[in-house]
């Protein structure tokens, strides 16, 4: 089946729904497609909050500076200016849409402190901020009547003469492949957390849209910048929100010492994430951890604060470790959490490919540079979701109706059919996924070096070869998850390869990229973005883009 829309948004997380709403407001025919029901999207997991310089004594310039310093000066400052200066309006708009933000005594929006921020500028709803935002946007999407294709899984972008004109998707309910033909496509497919094992990300965060755009010719940028969050739960890797430290929690080593005083005497536990994750890794490596973990101590906050402001992590620690954080500290370690890199876009979400836009975690504008500040990512999804919705709806008015596509759809149907009938040859998607995740965590994690990265590269290349013989262990048409897992694994391998190439290329330490063989930041040679382009059957081509500096020349970074 071929269905026509002006704009198709791939992804129904915060970025996707915000983009869809904005495009609809501008009078174009929009559809949103998502492999899970919109409210199941990973945005719902964001606990802590969303940043904006809205309070007295704060300004977007201070927010911008914190963001740029947090990024280790790799963020493009024009983009950061756009994000931080438009943030207050976007937060207020969310409030008008119905988000039940926390209020202060005057009934105005109230804030909490977050890592790497010099002012308390994080707006929140308990510790379910992402969920509250996601549901409000979903409710608004229902109100707007925008068409949502739920449980449709994207398998390919439809390209015509170098421009993007649609997406082919499997309707999970029937197994049918359909082409959603469009004049513009906005990729808002989220991150690629599952490329790492463990990760705080949901099982659905597999980098699909990043890989689809990459294969279609869109350049990826700063893929080596993978954020490890300092407080992920022992074993399962679930996130213990930064809001815990924002509310005053301590990090302790095995001697009960608040070790951050040796690494970031001013900001202590609230230093930037890369800084805290490195400190923990050193503590653990030097034998001051407990069983590969350090302790997150909330006991002094008291039951009331914990239960009213942090109920969700209290529940998770209790469910998964049997630990009640009111009475006991919780073992945590750094764990893969977020990617700063992604599909390169301008501040309107446009990629260099006509008709192709990207927004949210899958995009790299770049506002996060080498390290994202907590609560800046939700903001990124909203600001650039909105802007890409607006820009694409203006763009589609310049494009004539798309007529073709039958052949492309037929070819894609043949490709999937061939995959379905591939005989079993000993490889399963599950085993390869696990091997990939362990490899990436071990070799492309908090600390990296040339030897380890070369091993990772060889490992990923080998996994890619083995992937060619993975079979689909389910032959049904209806809700065939084995098929989508195999497709996801393909996307993950592309993302992993790009990440490793980026990490090998950048011969310095900046933000999340800490190379023990190049321990210093090197502004003379590396104050630039690493840009990767896909080449069939070969390593990606690599070139560079300068970092845009407006008001804030690079300085040394201390917390």
């Amino acid at each position, binding site marked *: 089946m071929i269905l026509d829309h002006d704009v198709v948004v791939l992804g129904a997380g915060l970025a996707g729904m915000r983009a869809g709403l904005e495009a609809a407001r501008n009078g174009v025919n929009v559809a949103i497609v998502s492999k*899970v*029901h919109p*409210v*199941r999207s*990973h945005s*719902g*997991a964001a606990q802590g909050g969303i940043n904006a310089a*809205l309070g007295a004594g704060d300004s977007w310039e201070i927010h911008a500076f914190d963001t740029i310093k947090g990024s280790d000066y790799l963020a493009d400052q024009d983009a950061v200016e756009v994000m931080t200066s438009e943030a207050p*309006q976007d937060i*207020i708009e969310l*409030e*008008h*849409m*119905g988000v*039940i*933000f*926390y*209020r*202060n*005594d*005057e*009934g105005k*929006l*109230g804030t909490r402190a977050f890592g790497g921020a010099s002012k308390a500028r994080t707006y929140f*709803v*308990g510790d*379910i901020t992402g*969920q*509250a935002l996601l549901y*409000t946007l979903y*409710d*608004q999407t*229902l*109100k707007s009547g925008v068409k949502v294709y739920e449980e449709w899984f994207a398998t390919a972008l439809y390209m015509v003469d170098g421009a993007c004109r649609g997406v082919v998707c499997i309707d999970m*309910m029937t197994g049918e492949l359909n082409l959603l033909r469009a004049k513009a496509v906005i990729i808002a497919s989220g991150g690629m957390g599952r490329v790492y094992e463990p990760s705080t990300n*949901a*099982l*659905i965060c597999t980098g699909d849209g990043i890989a689809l755009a990459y294969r279609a010719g869109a350049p990826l940028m700063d893929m080596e910048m993978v954020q490890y969050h300092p407080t992920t739960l022992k074993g*399962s890797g*679930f996130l213990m929100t930064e809001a815990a430290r924002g509310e005053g929690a301590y990090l302790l080593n095995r001697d009960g010492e608040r070790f951050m005083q040796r690494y970031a005497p001013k900001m202590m536990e609230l230093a930037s994430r890369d800084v805290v994750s490195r400190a923990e890794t050193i503590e653990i490596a030097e034998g001051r951890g407990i069983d590969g973990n350090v302790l997150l101590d909330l006991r002094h906050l008291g039951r009331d604060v914990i239960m009213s402001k942090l109920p*969700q992590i209290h*529940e*998770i620690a209790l*469910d*998964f470790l049997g630990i009640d954080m009111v009475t006991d500290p919780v073992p945590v370690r750094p764990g893969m959490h977020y990617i700063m890199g992604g599909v390169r876009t301008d501040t309107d979400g446009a990629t260099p490919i006509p008709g192709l836009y990207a927004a949210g975690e899958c995009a790299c504008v770049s506002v996060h540079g080498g390290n994202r500040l907590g609560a800046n990512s939700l903001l990124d999804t909203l600001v650039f979701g909105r802007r890409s919705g607006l820009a694409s709806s203006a763009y589609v008015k310049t494009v004539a109706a798309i007529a073709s596509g039958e052949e492309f759809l037929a070819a894609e149907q043949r490709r999937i059919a061939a995959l379905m009938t591939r005989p079993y040859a000993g490889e*399963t*998607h*599950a085993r390869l996924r696990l091997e990939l995740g362990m490899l990436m965590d071990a070799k492309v994690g908090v600390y990296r070096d040339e030897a380890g990265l070369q091993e990772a590269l060889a490992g990923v290349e080998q996994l890619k070869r083995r992937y060619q013989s993975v079979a*689909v*262990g*389910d*032959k*049904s*048409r*209806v*809700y*065939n*998850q*084995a098929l989508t*897992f195999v497709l996801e694994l393909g996307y993950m391998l592309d993302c992993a390869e790009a990440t490793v190439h980026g990490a090998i290329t950048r011969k310095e330490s900046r933000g999340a990229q800490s190379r023990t063989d190049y321990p210093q930041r090197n502004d003379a040679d590396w104050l630039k973005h690493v840009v990767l382009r896909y080449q069939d059957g070969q390593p990606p081509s690599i070139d560079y883009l300068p970092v845009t500096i407006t008001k804030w020349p690079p300085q040394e970074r201390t917390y």
Partner: protein
Amino acid sequence: MKWSIEVGRYDRSQNPSGPNVHGYPPPYEAAPAKRYQIFEVELDDQAMVLDGLIAIREYQDESLAVRCACRSAICGSCGMWINGKANLACTTKLREVAQDGKVRVESPPSMPVIRDLVSDMTPFWKKNLSVRPWLEGKKPVPQGLEEYRVPNAAMENLIQEVSCISCGLCLMDCESFAINPDFLGPAALAKAYRYADDPRDATVKQRLGDYSQANGIWECTHCYMCVDRCPKGVAPLDQILKLRRMAVDAGFTNNAGTRHALAFAESVRDSGRLNELTLLPKSVGLFNIPAQLRALPTALNMLRAGKMPPIIHHKIPGVDRIKNIFKKVGGLFK
């Protein structure tokens, strides 16, 4: 540890026309092709049911269909029947539900099935949509960088519902839904409360009127299942009771549900006990003969079982003290 997981298997594509396919309303017990299959998995004693299902899917049978994403009661994907009770697979420990190391999982009979443990949630989403689940902001909308000024308590009051993850557990086991598929159900009505008690909403009165209609707030039988099943403490019944109070206060009393409640209260106030003979006519309306006739089979059954209420309704001794209680409580029944 070895666990034995018995899974209810089903594939819609193999059953193109059974009642389970497009079938609605429930019940779907007659599903033609559900079969049970036992898998053995090796997992530690902290393992969740979902860990077991993932282990099966990854290493034994890739065709096992189960929705899951967050693995921590956030995304709401993994609602299913576990030993005959609606529950989340990702936060239910095997050791807490297994008997002799065995546990049974299946899609609940109250929902249509797509495949194995993947239910068709369409009824759930339709109900959600029908309560107008979005803010109709009061006009004028504050200008510039101004928010609606409301007390924090009014926002915190709504967090309970905003914690809802749309897992559908409440609806799956709701007793009114089992009888009346058109009942809006616990989650949708909790959402209805969330917007009806938002001080920023301009359409509260209209909402209360809508929710008081047939299949709305008065259709719930207080079975408490939703409160018991909800993994997020949403307590939908509590939200429904709040809506009822708001609706009665706003004057929406001309419906069977309110009349039933009023008749119930009046009878207790005036006689200290329930007059079952007058309850029905008072609820559906004295001259609503068809509705009273519809209840005739029930009445006849009661008669047969020796449960017919006495024709002459006696007051209990000390009924004055009950009247005093009503006076103290105040409200409509003083």
